[in-house]
Structures are given as C-alpha cells and as structure tokens.
C-alpha cells in the first residue's frame, strides 16, 4: 500500500518543482500537474479499494516522529480514502477543464491549484486540529489565488470578500483551537473527541467557536453572501472546484469536528443546515443569473447535507448512505453545471438556449439538473427517498416537510432554467464553443452519475435490475438518434414488445394490473406505430418516449413503494420531454413539471408515513396506515391527482396537451393520465372507507372528481382549438373516474374502470385523428377548418363513433358507463355529486358537437380543398381502437364481467349481475345486444325507406343552399364555427373563469416577492457580509444558550 503521506508530498513536490521548472513548456507543466493529481487520486483509490475489500484499519502517519502541532499527523481510514478520492478526482478533472487558464497563467497557477488540492487533502487526512487550521488556510489562500486567475472587477471583489470572510472564520476557528488546547492540553482530534465531553461542557466558548467556524465554512444562511459572490464571481472551473472539492472537504471537517459540540451541535447543524437549504432555494427563485443560481443551489445542497448530518442519529444505518448519495450527486452535478456555465459563457439563464446548438452538452445539462432534483436513476433519488422515509419514521415531520419544501423551491428555479434553455429561441445566439478540455470533464461526471445511481440502489434495495437494464436500451436508442425516425421507431416497437413480453407473467392473473398494463403497453405500441407518419429524424423523441413507457411499465410491475415511485418519476421525466416538444409548450411543460414535482414530493411524504406505519415499503404498507392516516392518504392522493389533472391541479394540462402533436397527444392523454388513476386505485384500496377520516377524504375526493368533470367539460365547450378542446375534455373525463373511485362502491369502481378503458379507446382515436387533421391542415383552430368530411371521410367516421361513445349515447359502449353511474347514484343516494357528474356528461354534448361540426361539417375552406386524408399510420391504430369500441359496445359483458368479478372481492355489495347479455342492478337493467339490434334494424329500415323514396336525390355543390336569395361564395362567411357557444358563455361563463390559475399565479407571485425580500440582504457589500457572519454567530449563541442546550 502506498503511504498516504505521498498524497501531500506529491502535491507539494510537484508544486515546488513547477516553480523551479519554469522553463519547461507550459503544456508539459500542465501534463505534470495532471499526472501528479492523478497519482494522488490513485493513492486514494487504492486505499479505498483496500478498505472496501478488506476489513482493516488505516494507518496513522506522523512526520518527523514528533507530536502535533510540531509534526503533521495523517490518518487514512475508509472515510478519508473516499473523501480524498473525491477531491483528487475533482482535482484531475478540474485541472483538465482549466487547461486554458492554467497554461495561460503559467506554472504559478498550476502550483496554486496543486497547493489548494493538497490543502483539501490535508484537511481530510490530518488528525490534528491545528494542522487542520493550517490546511484550511492553505486551501483558502489557494482558492483566492484561483479566483484571481481572472482579474476582472467581479472576480477581484469576490476574491476580496472571500478573503475577508475566510479570515474572520479562521480567526474564530483559531480562537476555538486555543481555548480547546488550553482546556484539554491536546490538539489531537481523537483525543479531543474523547476529552471534550469530559472536561468542558458542550456549548462552551471553545467548542462553540470551533463549531461556528466549521458551520460558517459551509456558508450557512444568511451569513453566506460572500459565498454566493464567490461562486458567481470566480471563473467557472474554479467555481466547480469550490462547489465540489472545497465544499466536500469542508463537509468532512464538519463530520470530523461536530461531535466536539455535543448533542447541541447536532441540533444546531440540523437547524442551520435545513434553514439554509430552504432559504437559499427560496431566495434563488427570483434569480436570473445562472452562476448565482448555481451558487444558491450549491449552498442549499450543502446546507441539506449539513442538516442531514445534524439529524443523522435519527436516520439509523442509512444516514451515511443518504449523505453520500446526496453529496455525491451534488459533487458530480454541480461541478458539471459550473463547467457548462463556463462553456455557455453567459450568466443569463435565457442565453442557455444556445446550449441546444451542441446537443450532447445539452443532454449533459439535463442529466445534471434532473440528478440534482433527485430524479431516478441518479443517486440523489435513492438518498432523498431514504431520507424522507427515515425522518418520517422518526416522527421528524417538520424536518421532512421543510426539506420537501426546499426541494420544491429548488425545482422551481432549476426547471425554469432548464425549460427556458430547452425552448427559447436560440437563432441569434452563437454556438457555445467547447474544447476537448472543457467537454470531457462534464461528460465524465454525467456518465458517472448513472453507475453511481445503480451502486446506491444496491444499498437501498427496492429496485431490481429491471429498473436499470431497460435504461441501457433507451441509452442505445439515444446514441442512435442520428438514424431516420422509422428505424428508431421499429427498434422502439421491438423494445416495447420485449418489455411487454417480460411484463406479462408479472401481471397475469391480476385483472387490475392487466388493465393498466394493457393500457400502458398497448398504448405504447399503438403510439409508436402511429409514429411512422413522421419524416426525418425526430431527434430526442424516442428515448424520452421509451423512458415514459418504461416508467409506466415499472409502475405496474412495482412490488414496493420505492419501485412505484421510481417508475413514477421516470415516467414524469419522459412525459415532460414529450409534452414540451410543442412549439408553444414552454410554460405548459414547465407547469407540468412543477405540478409533477410537487405531487411527487407530497406522495413521498405520504409513502413515508405508510412506511412508518407498516415498517416496510411493500405495497401492503398502504393498507390501513395508522400514523397520521388522513395526512398520509391525502398527500398520496394529491400526488396522484396532479397526474389526473383534478381540479386545483389541472391548469398544466390544457396547454401541455393542447400544444402536443398527434401521437404525443395520444400518449399524454389516453395513456399517461391513467397513471394517476392507477395510483388513486392503489391508495383507495389501501385506505378503504370504514374509518371516519377515510369517509371525509372520500367526500372531498368525490366533490373534486365531480367538479373536475364539470369544469373540464365547460372549459372544453369554449375552446377554439380542437386540441385544447380535447385536453379540457380529458380533464372532465378523468373527473368522472376520480368521482367513481371516490364513491367506494362496486358500481362506482366498475364505472371508473370502464371509463379508464373506454376513455383510452375513444380518446385515443380522437387524439390520433384530430392530431392528424391538425397536421394536415396546419392548424388546430377549428373555425379555420370546416367541411372536411368531404376530404377525410375515414377520419369523420372514426370521430363520429368516438363522440357517440364519449357522449354515452346508446347503443355504443359509452352508454354503459352512464347507466352504471345512474344506478350507483340512485342506489347510494349520491344525488348532489351525481347530479354534477350527470350535468357534466350532458355539457359534453356541447363540445362534442362543436368538435365534429366545426371541423368536418359546414363549409369547406378554399385552402383545404386539396387537403389529404389523415395519414394511414394514424388511421390504422385509430381504427384498431374503433374495433375495440364496437366489440365492447356489442358485448359489454366481456369487459364489465371480469372487472365485476374482480371488484366483488373488495365490494361484494351492490354488484352488477349478468344474465346472459342482460345486466341488472337492484334498480335498473339493460341488454345491449337487444338495444343494438332494435336501434340497428330501425336505422336500416328507415334508411332503406329513405333510399327508396329519395332515389332521385341529386348531390349539389357547396354553396347551393337556401340563403335568402343571396349566393354565398366565401366559405369563411357561411361557416359558423367561431365562438360557437357565445350564448352559453353569456349565461354560464362565470364557471369558466380561471380561478385556479389565478390562485397559483398568486402563489407564484407571493413566493417571488418573498424571494425578492430575502435577497435584499445580499447587498454585495463586504462589510455587510462580515456583519452577517458576526450576527450569525451571536444569534446562534443566544439561541443556543436560550433553548437548545
């Protein structure tokens, strides 16, 4: 084994050598620097490997054989090995990235870098507190030197403030060390840790000053203005080093020295850390500078891990897994983002759209952002999961809530940044220039996030290999993005088919899972088949689509809550990228992501309570939760309702779906929304309706469902765009389903399941066809269409049958849903909610007629006279679903029979009985084949009669209408389509007032105002920042003395 002292020696030796070898070429010097850093990393890696392989103790090395502080005592243990490895790897990558600056500034700059990395290594390895102080000073001075690699005003002032702040902190630290030495007579950290609790009281000046110093090194709120200026003022490569390497080393100091402060120190660390996390992310909300955002985020993230360390006794054996997963993600992702900021060379977040001109860099940007936000498959996903589970299990609800709130704030600005970069126009912006030196480090770190995620998952359990293996296939599709769309389409279909093959044995025999697996995987296959209509490469579409469907597949296959959440989050990422593809989708995609994030966080808290209640994360944990059950179930329902776009959480849907193209619209609405239904069914199955709280929740849920149905359908009636109309319609349809589920009755659930399946079919048809028409006509505005029945007869027929089904008009299958609802409403006496649902159904006639009339009937416009029928690639899947509709219409028992049998176990009372094809309840009855036969034969007879009597009918031209003697010639003037229900709006328009949108706007404005208020403390004035530090120390002292000790 290589002596760890060589880490210090190599760094120092090389740094001095560089000073002596100035005549060497700068490239050679740079190579030597890199080799030195790599050697240091190798030593750390070798030790870490040894520690992981063998159960051994690390060596303690002293220089010159004396005692500290006259010699340096170095300790290498498994933690030291890991942390030095992180720092040295960052040193290698950071130096590589800084190639241009280092070679430009010469050997001195390289020596400073080496000294800095050496200082950070020393901080970790030293076993002596005075040495620690010395290494901190070395690292601080080196950091300041690196900041000043660029000598513009911003960097100079940032470096100056940093020096002042670190000087003050060092002073506190040194004073603390002096007092400690005076009290204990030792500077050895191990000895101090043993001596301090016995010799001095926790909270004494000595330990308090040391504790304050190490906390201040973590840049706590609000004493962190200097830190934010440092992050934003330093060159990107240096900021990356500070964010990843310096912060990691400082954190290690915290781990090492916090025990000096005793129990109270942990409480302070927890409070300060979590406050910093929440406040930094809140303050960042109104920030538009990328580097400042990264600064706030870095400080926030480090605050979080500080807080977690403060709470680590509550987290049990998972504490360090949580810390390392979050710290590791921050380390990789934040460095990556700072590096990218150097490539973009603009601090304005809106200018980051330029990054799209380098797709690979943009992908890296996405990976870093989603990793930071704790999405799978990255390590932070598992860390946050375990963190919330642990905190909730320890009844630390407020801490968990604060962390989730802070995460939400972070999501708001990180996703705003990412979404704007993804969608804003970048034509005027220059392509970011990257070299091999600036490209490789972020690429390596982004790649490392994936194995790191898998590695973390192996420690948490819960996610099987099938949670990761398909990701490799998706990555492969991503690498093949340069291929034509049809090839990727074929590959994607093969992938989905293979996954379906894998999934089938897992769902076989479980009707509930079969229904949803059928919708998800069947939807995937149909949507991908429809995708053959696309030409070109359709960049980025297939990986994200497959990611969404993988998430949905995992959701169905999940055997525990973590798997469920994993699938849910994967699905969210994939669907976000699909929904934001539309031309004007920026605000809607962003809104979708925020609602999804908020829902996920609520859901995670709910899962935490379920886990705390059952002591397991198996799905059975959802059954009869006894720890804050009302809160648990409500949070989970809120989480799932963000996906079903239920009232209050629906505002993202119209725009997100309305701007999507045909096949994406189909996936998003007919398929994706069902994920929320899946979740609600799981939650309600676990909750039951026997407890009083459950009945209250169900009452609220029922009203949410009913009102969602009404508002959705009324909203649909007033849309001019067919896509928006269908989007609002989806809100309404999902409202029916939520209402049905909330009834907790056999018939209610039967109707909900029935709607889930039939909505998939008829809405699938509508989305594909209407999307196809919009593609052909070039607009989704219905009033710009008209008369298309003559150009698109197949589309018309499909839409006709779909709207008849959706309207619930007999003899098609939609009627069965209405019939079941009526029976349920009467038998359960749910008149008021039921009335709202029924009215909603009747209101649906308005938009359905508008949809088919304004598009297909009326007057054909001149510009559409040569428009072609919708692509067969869209018609074929639509007609396949149409066959499904007709079969279910003829024989509804084929669907309702098995569903009824499944539901009879949970809801044995009030079931639907089948006698042949006759369905009956205690109240009503219907026989669909007879209804269909009577209607069909009547139709046929009347039709034949008309044919016979009207055989000489002549088809006339378009304008041959009875028009008061006038001869209309402009179809635009005779096509009644715009503002179709003006009179209706005049009467009930008050119900379409976007109150919910206004509410969320107010929330957003309030948060931004609060953020602006909080940001006011960051004046940029160095004196103020020093005062903040002093004030922070005084405040903590007073609080500590007053309450926590």
């Amino acid at each position, binding site marked *: 084994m290589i002596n760890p002292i060589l880490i210090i020696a190599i760094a120092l030796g090389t740094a001095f050598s560089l000073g002596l070898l100035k005549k060497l070429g700068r490239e050679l010097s740079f190579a030597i620097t890199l080799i030195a850093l790599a050697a240091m990393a190798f030593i750390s890696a070798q030790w870490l490997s040894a520690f992981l392989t063998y159960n051994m103790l690390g060596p303690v090395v002293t220089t010159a054989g004396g005692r500290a502080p006259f010699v340096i005592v170095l300790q290498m243990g498994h933690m030291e090995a890991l942390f030095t490895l992180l720092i040295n790897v960052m040193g290698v990558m950071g130096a590589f990235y800084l190639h241009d600056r280092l070679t430009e500034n010469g050997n001195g700059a390289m020596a400073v870098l080496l000294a800095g990395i050496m200082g950070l290594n020393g901080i970790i390895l030293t076993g002596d507190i005075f040495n620690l102080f010395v290494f901190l000073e070395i690292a601080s001075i080196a950091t300041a030197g690196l900041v000043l690699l660029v000598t513009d005003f911003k960097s100079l002032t940032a470096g100056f403030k940093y020096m002042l702040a670190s000087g003050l902190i060092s002073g506190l630290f040194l004073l603390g060390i002096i007092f400690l030495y005076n009290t204990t007579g030792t500077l050895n950290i191990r000895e101090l840790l043993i001596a301090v609790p016995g010799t001095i009281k926790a909270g004494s000046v000595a330990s308090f000053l040391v504790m304050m110093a190490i906390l201040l090194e973590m840049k706590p709120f609000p004493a962190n203005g200097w830190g934010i200026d440092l992050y934003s003022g330093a060159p990107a490569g240096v900021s990356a080093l500070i964010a990843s390497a310096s912060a990691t080393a400082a954190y290690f100091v915290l781990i090492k020295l916090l025990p000096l402060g005793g129990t109270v120190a942990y409480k302070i660390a927890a409070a300060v850390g979590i406050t910093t996390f929440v406040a930094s992310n809140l303050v960042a909300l109104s920030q538009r500078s990328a580097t400042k955002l990264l600064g706030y985020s870095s400080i926030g993230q480090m605050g979080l891990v500080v807080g977690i360390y403060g709470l680590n006794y509550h987290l049990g054996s998972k504490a360090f897994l949580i810390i390392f997963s979050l710290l590791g993600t921050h380390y990789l992702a934040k460095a990556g983002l700072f590096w990218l900021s150097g490539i973009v060379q603009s601090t304005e977040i809106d200018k980051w759209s330029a990054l799209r001109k380098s797709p690979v860099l943009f992908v890296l940007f996405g990976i870093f952002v989603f990793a930071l936000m704790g999405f799978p498959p990255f390590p932070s996903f598992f860390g946050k999961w375990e963190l919330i589970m642990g905190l909730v299990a320890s009844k630390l609800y407020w801490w968990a809530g604060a962390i989730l709130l802070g995460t939400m704030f972070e999501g708001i600005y990180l996703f705003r940044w990412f979404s704007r970069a993804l969608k804003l126009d970048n034509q005027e912006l220059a392509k970011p220039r990257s070299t091999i030196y600036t490209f490789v480090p972020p690429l390596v770190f982004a790649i490392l996030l994936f194995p790191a995620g898998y590695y973390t998952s192996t420690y948490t359990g819960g996610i099987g290999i099938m949670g990761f293996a398909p990701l490799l296939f998706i990555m492969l599709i991503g690498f093949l993005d340069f291929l034509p769309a049809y090839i990727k389409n074929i590959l994607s279909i093969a992938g989905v088919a293979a996954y379906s093959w894998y999934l089938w044995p897992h769902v076989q025999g479980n009707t509930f899972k079969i229904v949803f697996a059928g919708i998800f995987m069947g939807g995937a296959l149909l949507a991908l088949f429809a995708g053959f209509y696309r030409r070109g490469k359709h960049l980025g579409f297939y990986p994200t689509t497959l990611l969404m469907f993988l998430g949905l597949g995992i959701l169905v296959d999940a055997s525990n809550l973590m798997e469920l959440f994993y699938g849910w989050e994967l699905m969210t990422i994939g669907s976000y990228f699909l929904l934001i593809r539309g031309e004007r989708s920026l605000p809607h995609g962003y809104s979708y992501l925020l609602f999804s994030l908020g829902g996920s966080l609520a859901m995670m808290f709910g899962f935490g309570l379920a886990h705390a209640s059952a002591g397991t994360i198996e799905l059975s944990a959802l059954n009869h939760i006894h720890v804050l059950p009302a809160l648990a179930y409500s949070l989970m329902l809120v989480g799932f309702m963000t996906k079903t776009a239920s009232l209050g959480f629906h505002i993202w849907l119209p725009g997100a779906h309305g701007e999507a193209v045909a096949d994406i619209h189909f996936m998003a609405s007919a398929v994706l929304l069902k994920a929320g239904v899946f979740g609600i069914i799981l939650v309600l199955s676990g909750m039951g309706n026997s407890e009083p709280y459950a009945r209250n929740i169900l009452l609220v849920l029922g009203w949410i469902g009913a009102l969602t149905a009404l508002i959705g359908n009324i909203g649909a009636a007033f849309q001019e765009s067919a896509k928006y109309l269908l989007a609002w319609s989806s809100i309404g349809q999902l409202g029916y389903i939520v209402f049905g589920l909330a009834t907790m009755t056999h018939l209610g659930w039967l109707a909900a399941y029935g709607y889930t399946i039939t909505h998939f079919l008829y809405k699938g048809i509508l989305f594909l066809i209407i999307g196809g028409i919009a593609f052909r006509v070039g607009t989704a505005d219905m009033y710009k269409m008209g008369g298309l029945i003559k150009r698109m007869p197949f589309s018309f027929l499909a839409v006709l049958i779909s709207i008849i089904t959706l309207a619930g008009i007999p003899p098609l299958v939609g009627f069965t849903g*209405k019939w079941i609802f009526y029976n349920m409403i009467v038998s359960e006496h749910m008149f008021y909610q039921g009335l709202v649902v029924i009215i909603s159904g009747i209101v649906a006639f308005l938009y359905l007629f508008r949809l088919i009339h304004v598009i297909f009937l009326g007057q054909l416009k001149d510009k559409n006279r040569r428009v072609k029928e919708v692509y067969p690639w869209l018609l074929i899947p639509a007609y396949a679903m149409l066959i499904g509709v007709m079969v279910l219409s003829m024989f509804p028992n084929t669907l309702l029979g098995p569903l009824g049998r499944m539901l009879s176990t949970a809801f044995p009372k009030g079931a639907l009985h089948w006698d042949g094809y006759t369905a009956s309840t205690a109240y009503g009855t219907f026989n669909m084949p007879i209804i269909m036969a009577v209607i069909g034969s009547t139709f046929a007879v009347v039709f034949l009669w008309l044919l016979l009597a009207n055989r000489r009918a002549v088809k006339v031209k378009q304008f041959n209408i009875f028009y008061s003697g006038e001869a209309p010639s402009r179809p635009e003037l005779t096509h009644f389509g715009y503002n179709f229900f003006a*009179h209706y709006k005049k*009467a009930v328009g008050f119900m379409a007032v976007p109150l919910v949108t206004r509410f969320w706007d107010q929330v957003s404005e309030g948060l931004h105002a609060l953020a602006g208020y909080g940001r006011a403390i960051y004046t940029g004035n160095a004196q103020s920042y020093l005062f903040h530090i002093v004030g922070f120390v005084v405040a903590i002292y007073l609080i500590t003395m007053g309450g926590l000790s």
Partner: protein
Amino acid sequence: MNFDPMKIPWSLLGLFIVFCIGMFIRGFVPKITARVGKRIGIRIYQPWFDYVKNFSIQTSITHGYMFYLGPVFRLTGGIGMVLFMPLIHGSWYFSNFAFAGDMVLFLYLMFFGTLGMALGAGESGHPYSAIGVARGLAQVTVAEIPLVLAMLAVAAQHHTLSISQIVAAQQGGIAHWTMVTNPVATATGMLALLGSMMNSPFNVVLAPQEIPIGPPTEYHGTFLGILTTNRSIFPMAKIIFFMNIFFGGATNWAILILKGWLIYMWPVIVGVVFPRFRVDQSIRWFLKVPLLLGILAVALV
C-alpha cells in the same frame, strides 16, 4: 326477459298508433294557438296533407352522406324511444322492448336522434342550421338538469329505474301517482318538459316565426317527410314517458290519449301565454327555479 319475435309486430302497431296520435295533435295544437290569437288556423288534418306532399315532391337534393343520414338518425332515435317504453301498463302486446332498458336508456336515446340530426344539418353548410343546433344544444344541457333531478327523485322514491316498475308502483288510483306522492319531482319534471317541446318561451332554436333557422333549414321533400314523421313520434315519446313516471301511466289507449293530450297541452298553454326567451335567458331560467325545485325533490326523497 328473453326476446320474443312476436314483440316486433305488436311494437310496430303501437308505434303506428303513437304516430297517428302525434299527427293528430300536430294538427290540433296549431289550431288552438291560432284561436288564441283570434285566427282560424290550419285544418286539423293538414299535417297528413303535408306529409303526403313531402313524400311526393319530385326534386330532391343532398349535400352529402351525413346530410342524407341526419333524418335517418333523427327518426331512428324517435322510434327507439317509443320501442323501449311500455305504452300500455299490463299489456304484453304494448309493453314493447321495455325489458331491455330503463329510464337511463330513454334519456340517452333522446340524444341519438338529436345528434344525428344536428350532424346532418351541419353538413348542409347552412350557417343558420348550425346556429340553431348551437342554441338547441345549449338549451338542452340546462333543461335536462331538472329532468334528471326529477328522474332521480322518482327512481329513488320507487326504488327502480325501470319505467314499467314505476308505472306499476303508481297503480291503484290517483293517490298513488307520482304527481301526488311526489309533487315536487313532478313539478320539476314538468318545468323541464317546457324546455324540450319547442314551444315558446323555449323555441328560439327553431325561431319559427322569423327567418328560417334551425336544423331543418336545408331539409325538404322526402327528408322533411322523415323529419315530420319524427315530429309526430318524438314529442309523443316524451309525453308518454312523462305520463308513465308522473301520472300513473295508461292501462288502455283511451287513457293514454287523454293523459297524453293533457300533458301535451301544458307546454302549449305556457307557449301561448309567455313570450320567447333568448338562449342565455332560458339557460338562466332553468338554473333558477327548476334547479332549486329539483334539488328539493331529491332532498325530500
């Protein structure tokens, strides 16, 4: 209950009788409204002449397939409503196919013809047709609210959605009629009826006194003949439905005619007394008293 082929001829006979009653009333009502206005009015058999005339017109034009099929949908819906409703209580011959469906079927079958007709009219390309449809749909969405509430109240009261069983539950004298046992639901239903009978104040959909407007604008000849057939069947179907659920049904054809005529007169009388609403006015009207009455009706069950 199993399907018996002999039901077919008897149901067709019942349908024909309903049609004839409808034709009679369609001649009788204009006569009354004319007399109220101190005019002579049409002859009572005029609808029959119009009927023959429509089917005899030699020229016929069509605007397309949906235009052609619109009247077919319309009449199918009207006939379907009759065929799934028991006409004469206790009579196997005139119970039609009521065993295959209930009130919910009736309610939604109402829209079958309406939708088809609206689509057919839409393909004519005439803006007035579409305007009429838009008005009609907007109005029907609110007129249905009290109807649904009344239906729910009646179904809850009699513990069934079956029209036949509701009629059966009302037998034994007027005291058993829903009208007596559940007057609030009946009042609600009767107010709802006003909205669907195309009489003033709710007939702006067709606006018969001014410019030709509404779905039939472009229909003529045989098409109009089919629609006329439906105009004799469809309102009768609704009237018989109301008779069945509120007024004890009918045990023979004479009672059916009498009750049907009286119920039919309700919207007619209201129509000649009150002026026409605009659509937004009628929407607001249905959302006031009828809605409150309907809520009261279900609250009282």
